């Protein structure tokens, strides 16, 4: 089936960046010199628009950035948020499950004595608090950005 000029031009205008023309459009362009010229002209125009000569500013920006970077501490590999959340979830879950099921764990009682459930829950609670404090302390910059974005910090 033949493609009309209007359809071909509409399809050209709908194309994503770097997207292939597709078989139907390609066939139409090979037969229709008007549409082919229009497609080529648009490509040339965009190519010329993107081909901007390098400016002096680029070198200047690189110099200024690198001068600042040399004075800054090196960025360190950090953990993904889910890497932080998983241990916290395990500690929290253990803290809540221990009083419920702790009495059924005979080997734990023989190992730590009869009152171990309370002591262990206390240790887990302290560990959870310390872990949370450490997480907040290492994410202060992100917290500040988050609060700033929502306008919750006074200027």
């Amino acid at each position, binding site marked *: 089936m033949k493609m009309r000029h209007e359809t071909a031009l509409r399809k050209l205008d709908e194309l994503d960046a770097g997207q292939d023309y597709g078989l139907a459009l390609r066939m139409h362009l090979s037969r229709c010199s008007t549409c082919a010229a229009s497609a080529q002209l*648009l490509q040339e*125009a965009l190519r010329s628009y993107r081909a901007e000569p390098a400016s002096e*500013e*680029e070198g200047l920006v*690189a110099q200024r950035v690198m001068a600042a970077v040399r004075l*800054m501490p090196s*960025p360190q590999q950090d953990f993904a948020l889910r890497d932080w959340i998983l241990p916290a979830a395990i500690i929290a879950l253990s803290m809540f499950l221990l009083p419920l099921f702790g009495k059924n764990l005979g080997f734990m009682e023989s190992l730590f004595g009869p009152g171990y459930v309370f002591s262990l829950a206390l240790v887990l609670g302290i560990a959870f608090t310390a872990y949370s404090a450490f997480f907040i302390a290492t994410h202060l910059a992100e917290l500040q950005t988050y609060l700033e974005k929502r306008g919750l910090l006074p200027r």
Partner: protein
Amino acid sequence: MSAAGETRETSDEEAIGRVLDGDAEAFEVLVRRHSARVLRLGQSFFHDQDEAADFAQDVFIKAYTALASFRGRSLFSTWLLRIAYNTAINSKKRKREQISLDPEIEMAGEPGTDVAHMREETAKAVRAAMADLPPKQALCIELYFYYELKYSEISEITGYPVNTIKSHVFRAKRNLRERLEGFGGE
């Protein structure tokens, strides 16, 4: 090796890996490779060379600080443009200025040549399309036409739905095609 030679030979991923291993100098590869794009975005927003240079510096410093959080799920250029876009929007918000996207902005080019004329017409069409839109959406047009980003990448950077971006770009292309009609040479 010269800075330019190293820029050509080192990939973004390699450079990022070296920076995270403590070699701060490797960051220059990324700055040299991407500074033109960031500067261009700054010029689109601020219409001032000095302000665009300050903006670009700010963006790269932010990128350096946050480099460890780059997970490689998108291209480094997309990640960097997202930082640039947010920085520009926040900077404008802070100044409480109305962004004016001037359709008559001057484009550098060799006067008198057909290529320069075509480039000028293209720039006019892009600027006109941008002027018709709210400032935050207007950048979608530039991200498509100048940066050659896909709709999905623009959506990732700006947060706008793909269909919104697609319809803006569609209208801008149609407008550009009309402006280019005189260049056919037939």
